[in-house]
């Protein structure tokens, strides 16, 4: 029964019905008598919903049941009852154990790899060697003076080196030798080294043949090279 028909029947007397109303309800009621009975049925049916209510205790007990069911975090993790809770926690435990075992298995492999990498890297990155000649040849100022005593003063500021290897090292030694004196003018060029105040050096013997010839022909170049390095 549509709401409109229900409304027509409930709110009108049969004698007050319009033609349209009568046409609307004719399917439902065939006479005034039926109209009045149906009206009473509809009015009475509403009141059949008796004012009965569950006791307040029912609400309390259901709330308790709800809290028992959804107590703690497990309520969020599961909503399918006790049996499922166990399954979920078991899954977590098994997953954690599996991850732990895998990590324990992988750790030695990873550790070996690290050691191999370290071992293979060691020669690849050698420590910078300090020039050994400095420690062997010139260990102290006294030795330096002794070495210098072996150098003959030739005059005009030109000094001649003995045949032994002439080594000059350290900034203080470099400072003590004055390049303006053409220190290497007559020296055995093959054994002359040049230092730039750091650990780099230039050995004339290491130079190409052509370069050595040029230097021998023009000893003044040594001064230039010295100041350049």
């Amino acid at each position, binding site marked *: 029964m549509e709401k409109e028909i229900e409304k027509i029947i409930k709110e009108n007397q049969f004698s007050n019905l319009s033609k349209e109303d009568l046409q609307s309800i004719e399917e439902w009621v065939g006479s005034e008598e039926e109209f009045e*009975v149906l009206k009473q*049925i509809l009015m009475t049916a509403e009141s*059949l919903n008796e004012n009965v209510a569950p006791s307040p205790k029912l609400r309390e007990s259901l709330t308790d049941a709800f809290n028992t069911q959804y107590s703690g975090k497990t309520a969020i993790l599961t909503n399918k009852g006790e049996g499922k809770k166990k399954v979920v926690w078991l899954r977590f435990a098994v997953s954690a154990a599996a991850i732990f075992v895998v990590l324990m298995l992988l750790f030695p492999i990873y550790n070996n790899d690290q050691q191999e990498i370290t071992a293979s890297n060691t020669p690849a990155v050698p420590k910078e060697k300090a020039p050994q000649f400095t420690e062997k040849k010139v260990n102290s100022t006294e030795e330096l003076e002794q070495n210098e005593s072996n150098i003959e003063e030739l005059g005009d500021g030109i000094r001649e080196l003995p045949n032994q290897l002439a080594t000059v090292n350290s900034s203080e030694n470099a400072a003590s030798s004055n390049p303006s004196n053409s220190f290497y003018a007559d020296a055995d060029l093959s054994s002359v080294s040049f230092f730039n105040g750091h650990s780099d050096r230039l050995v004339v013997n290491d130079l190409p043949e052509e370069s050595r010839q040029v230097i021998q022909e023009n000893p003044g170049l040594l001064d230039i090279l010295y100041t350049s390095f």
Partner: protein
Amino acid sequence: MRLLRATYKDFSDEKLMHEMQLGKEQAFQELYDRYAQSLHQYFYRRMWKDKEKAEDFVHDLFTKIIKNPESFDVNRTFKTWIFSVANNMTINEYKKQAVRSVVSTGIETEYQASTNASSDSIVQDEMFREALEKELIELDEKHREVFELRHIQGFSVKEIAQTLGINEGTVKSRVFYAVKQLTGKLVEFKVSLQA
């Protein structure tokens, strides 16, 4: 707490159901407050006006919701879903107990006793009411349930269709049949009363 409750009062039934599944007690209580009484009335009527039994059914129904909230069919409205569960519970109860005829006899006895009462309008109204209840019980189950849902519980045709899982045309035809049956029987009753 009052603020929370006020918020939940604005929630739809379906949203409350979702919140309830997250363990929100207030959501559950709001749902209970919305439906407990109408369900109790429904069971009360369907369970032969046995208040204790009706309360037991309400308890069982809400316990089912608490324990298996995922059984809520999200494609349906909560109202039609919960009443369909209630309807199934009553059908199962009918199957369990073959007591309908006994109850019918009891009401008939009451009705006959009432007809001997005074004839003023209040009493006549009460008598009509009892007669209607008797005729409702006499109706077959499928017509009675649609009539009760439509005219006692106040469901729309669409809601009845969703609750019972039948199409709207079937609901309309069943309501029509039930109304015609009741009208015919109660016209006779009125005539007999006036005679």
